[in-house]
């Protein structure tokens, strides 16, 4: 076992992990932050997306020890300080951007990274950015709408409600 330390959602954390322990396992099993989901465990679905040093990564395809010393942000750290939903989360609720909700943590984390780099993305930029995030429920239109809305743009350009 090796010791790993990282700042997760602003809090210093540490734990003992094996070489093979995935970042997703460290977050879920060691820290109990189960908002980061494991859909595929093969780097396809994006439900495990978190930010490492501000960049989106698939936490199922990164070792915990690779994130030693890093700043990690997960869905649990996204709400506003008073516990209310942040702009992106609220937009997902308002525009029915989720049904079962399984993909949602990854979608929200990807959306947050996109809007940080590109505050007013076009519909096609949003769709392209989400190519590594799969949703089996919504058909994507409402997710795209939610992200457009969160960026303060008109959502009527997106096809179906």
């Amino acid at each position, binding site marked *: 076992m*090796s010791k790993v330390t990282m700042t997760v959602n602003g809090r210093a954390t540490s734990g003992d992990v*094996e*070489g*093979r322990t*995935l970042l997703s396992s460290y977050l879920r099993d060691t820290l109990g932050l189960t908002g980061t989901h494991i859909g595929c*465990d*093969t*780097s*396809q679905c*994006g439900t495990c*997306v978190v930010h*490492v040093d501000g*960049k*989106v*990564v*698939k936490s199922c*395809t*990164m*070792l915990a*020890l*690779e994130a*030693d010393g890093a700043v990690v942000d997960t869905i649990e750290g996204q709400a506003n300080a008073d516990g209310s939903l942040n702009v992106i989360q609220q937009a997902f609720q308002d525009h029915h951007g989720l049904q079962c909700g399984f993909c949602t943590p990854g979608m929200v984390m*990807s959306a947050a*990274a*996109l809007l940080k780099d590109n505050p007013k993305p076009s519909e096609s930029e949003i769709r392209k*950015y989400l*190519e*590594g*995030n799969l949703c089996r429920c919504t058909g994507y239109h409402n997710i795209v709408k939610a992200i457009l809305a969160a960026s303060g743009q008109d959502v009527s350009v997106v096809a179906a409600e």
Partner: protein
Amino acid sequence: MYNFEFERPSSVDDAVQSLGGEALALGGGQTLIPALKQRLNQPDKLVSLTGISELNGISMLSDGRLSVKGATTHATVAEQAREHYPALADLARHIGDPAVRNRGTIGGSLANNDPAACYPAAVLGSDATVVTNAREISASDFFTGMFATVLSDNEIITEVRFQVPSSANYQKFLQPASRFALTGVFVAKFADGVRVAVTGASENGVFRWADAESALSANFTQSAVENSSVSPDGMISDLHGSAAYRASLVKTLTKRAVAAAS
């Protein structure tokens, strides 16, 4: 995954010292970690290259070549190579998805030499030089077949030096499930001739299409390759596309790349 030791050295020398035996170098892990999960490999140690600052970055060399350090991510190439070598930046911008591009590295991709990976086409098409801790290897000597290169077990790709063509384009026909190229063609026009490198098609991995190169060197237009064709012998055939389909894609994509690069 079987367990392994993990090391994260901060210099190339230390990384080389740590390799050997059953140890493996770990780039961004976007291929190796999934492979380990499937128990396709059983290293006793992984030596991460992502903590080595001398392995990261992009710069123009005084001889006009573009240097990309071995552990530079696809996302960094997509962003920082744009002003120097737009076709290379564009290729990097279409590898995998944003999360994969933030981790995957050029050295990892080349050392793995997946027969459908994008970077090998750019490296061969740009007549690049692969630099390791031990030597400099010309692109034409580097790739030796599917998932095979001339690298030895304790050799690390430290840098790739690209010749920058006057114009170039990469056309990737996406295999949408894997996000690899079903077939991809990199066309690069240099003062002394045109290079055409094909990935995703051959069972031997990336290759140069010599007929198209000579036709395009004489006349850089789509019609120049009209009468050329590649043989489907030795092409990959799977549920996504037959050998004949891939052979046909090679020509179609070459023409599209020429049109885009003209």
